């Protein structure tokens, strides 16, 4: 990024064309100019603002921004907050459950479909249906389904199984898993799609060779096909992690963070604290969230950018 800052802007070269008689900008200049507005907006919205948030996290801002520098105090308060640690713990649980669940389910479904089925279109459509829905819709539906008195628990009891319990939604120790459940329902389809594309991009010759050598199917998958799908696995992991970390709508509509704050997540913690007169602490939380995402996603991005450079795309 520092390259762009140090490079000198290209000279504007007017190249008069014989046909038009008008001065034309070189393609290089035109494309440069075309990118300036976007580059400016991206720089401001995504970088200056993040920088501003970092600065605010070192001030005593409450309802409105103030620029009284207080050092690490907001971070100390953040780390002394029970609620913050609960949200981070929840993020770990949620992210790992979501990622494992989505990827396992998505992989299994992708393999099943890839083996060949006449109804592929039908299966794909129904499995990816939840992706078209908003997190708000998902939260409302699953809150309804998991409602102990009126949802699945009650319905199963009506069917005769009196002792059936499924009140995870209202249990402090289990409510975070309900969010994971709703998340897996919504996003497995995406993992499935990514893996399906990955499976299909593997050279068909491998299968032929495996058949010749009489290797059992499961071994072919495990030792030959899956290693080739590294990019797909990485992509799925990164997208799922980013989605988990940004999760706000789902928490608000499914559990409201409850019971208490047992199912709260960092994204909601930040917004809550912005609303609670705690701009400084909210900013500190936001920075920690950003660092968490960067830690997980950073290596992937770095590799992706190097790959693009090497491949010369």
């Amino acid at each position, binding site marked *: 990024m520092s390259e762009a800052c140090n490079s000198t802007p290209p000279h504007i070269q007017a190249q008069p064309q014989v046909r038009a008689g008008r001065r034309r900008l070189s393609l290089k200049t035109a494309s440069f100019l075309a990118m300036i507005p976007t580059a400016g907006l991206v720089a401001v919205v995504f970088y200056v603002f993040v920088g501003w948030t970092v600065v605010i996290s070192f001030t005593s801002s409450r309802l409105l921004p103030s620029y009284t520098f207080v050092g690490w105090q907001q971070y100390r308060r953040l780390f002394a907050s029970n609620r913050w640690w609960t949200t981070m713990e929840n993020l770990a649980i949620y992210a790992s459950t979501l990622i494992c669940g989505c990827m396992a389910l998505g992989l299994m479904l992708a393999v099943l479909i890839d083996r060949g089925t006449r109804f592929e279109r039908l299966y794909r459509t129904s499995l990816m249906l939840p992706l078209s829905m908003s997190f708000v819709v998902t939260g409302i539906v699953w809150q309804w389904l998991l409602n102990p008195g009126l949802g699945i628990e009650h319905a199963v009891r009506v069917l005769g199984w009196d002792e059936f319990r499924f009140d995870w939604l*209202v249990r402090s120790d289990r409510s975070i898993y309900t969010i994971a459940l709703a998340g897996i329902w919504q996003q497995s389809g995406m993992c499935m799609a990514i893996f399906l594309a990955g499976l299909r991009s593997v050279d068909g010759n491998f299968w032929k060779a495996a058949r010749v050598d009489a290797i059992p199917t499961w071994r072919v998958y495990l030792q030959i096909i899956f290693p080739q799908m590294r990019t797909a696995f990485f992509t799925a992991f990164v997208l799922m992690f980013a989605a988990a970390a940004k999760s706000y709508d789902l928490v608000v509509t499914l559990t409201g963070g409850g019971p208490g704050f047992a199912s709260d997540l960092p994204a909601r913690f930040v917004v809550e604290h912005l609303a609670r007169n*705690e701009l400084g602490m909210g900013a500190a939380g936001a920075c920690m969230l950003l660092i968490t995402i960067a830690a997980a996603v950073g290596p992937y991005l770095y590799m992706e950018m190097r790959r693009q450079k090497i491949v010369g795309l």
Partner: protein
Amino acid sequence: MSSGINNYRHGHKQPAAARLPREPLPRVKLSRTERCFALIAGALLSLSTFAAAPSAQPLEVMHWLTSSHDAAALAVVREAFTSRGGSWVESPMPGPGGTGRTAAVNRIVGGLPPGAFQFSLGSQLVELATAGMIAPVRTNTQWDAAIPASIALASKYGGRDIAVPMNIRGENWMFYNSAVLRRAGVAVPRTWDDFLAAAIKLKATGITPIALGGQAWQERLLFNSVLLGTGGREFYRRIYEQVDERAIGSAAMLRTYSIFGALRQFVDSGSPGRRWNQTTAFLIQGHAAFLFMGDWAKNEIIAVGLEPGVQIGCALAPAPEPAYIMMVDAFAFGRLKTPALEAAQNLFAQTLRDPKVQARMAQKLGAIPVRTDISDSGFDICSKHAMSIIREPQAQLLDPFLTLAGGLSGALDDAISQYWNQKELSAEQGRKMFLEAVKNNR
């Protein structure tokens, strides 16, 4: 929204002349004389519009009084306001309390301040005033003398009034289903020890002793009632006004937490996340015996055709001395640089302070008026009781939201809620979390 609002999008940057309504002139060729006349006529017209501005420019009123009872209360104010020559346009907020306050703050910080907006007295309002975003209204000494001193103080900043309190909401009420208590042979408890005994008896007969909705603010309401009931009025003040750490470390606090912890077993399994209106319905339907809720629950009782104080009884939560934990809804005013609208704001304040408006509004809301010099005729029996209690200054206690900084209030909510929901925590641990929250957020 009226076009008047759109004029203020860049309001604070435009000169006064630009804010007058501009009509596109018709494309007609005028002679010099005609043009002269047109100019004079135009100037006279705009002058008269300017002079008539107070009734032409409506005041934008943001509020969360959207349920049927609340809307009736707002109608009382609207009638009184328009009969005094004012006109307003309403902007309902997406929700009450915190949601509504956030909406108002967004509007103010976003550069589009509403003329009048409903808000809660407390540190958020003070911070807005510190930043110069609140328009003060004219002080009325008669009003200041007629209302509880702590509320008068809370509505001032720098000696000027930054808000007009609308009504007092009491939070330490204990509603009970009379029929259920009668059936179980339980009397209305006067102390927390009595309450625990009664609750055990009720639970044995299969009734849920306490109807509670598992949301942080409802848990806090219950906690504050227990705190007042165990430690008394002075203790409450030491905790929530002075935030005295020694008081937090005292035996009275430990006792508060033990009793609060003991109440966990008396709540039904449907409690977590349940909204207060559904929780009130739970009590009314006879599934539960007691409900610790603010006086807004009376509206739900009235909505099903019952009378508060009769089938559903109201008593203050068990306490050694009479006290009323007050939550104050108020209207504050955004900075609009038109003299005409500032006049409208002061008119609005004047309307709210009128004893007749106060009385009728409070009756519709199920609250009590802020003024203590109003007769209690026309109020229900619960309100009558409350109005007599707050006449004694010692009994006037404030909800922590009014006395604590926003961050601390929220952190205490978190601590209380965590203790309530994690049943394995001991009273000692609960008290420690409270103390940590205080130390961390001073």
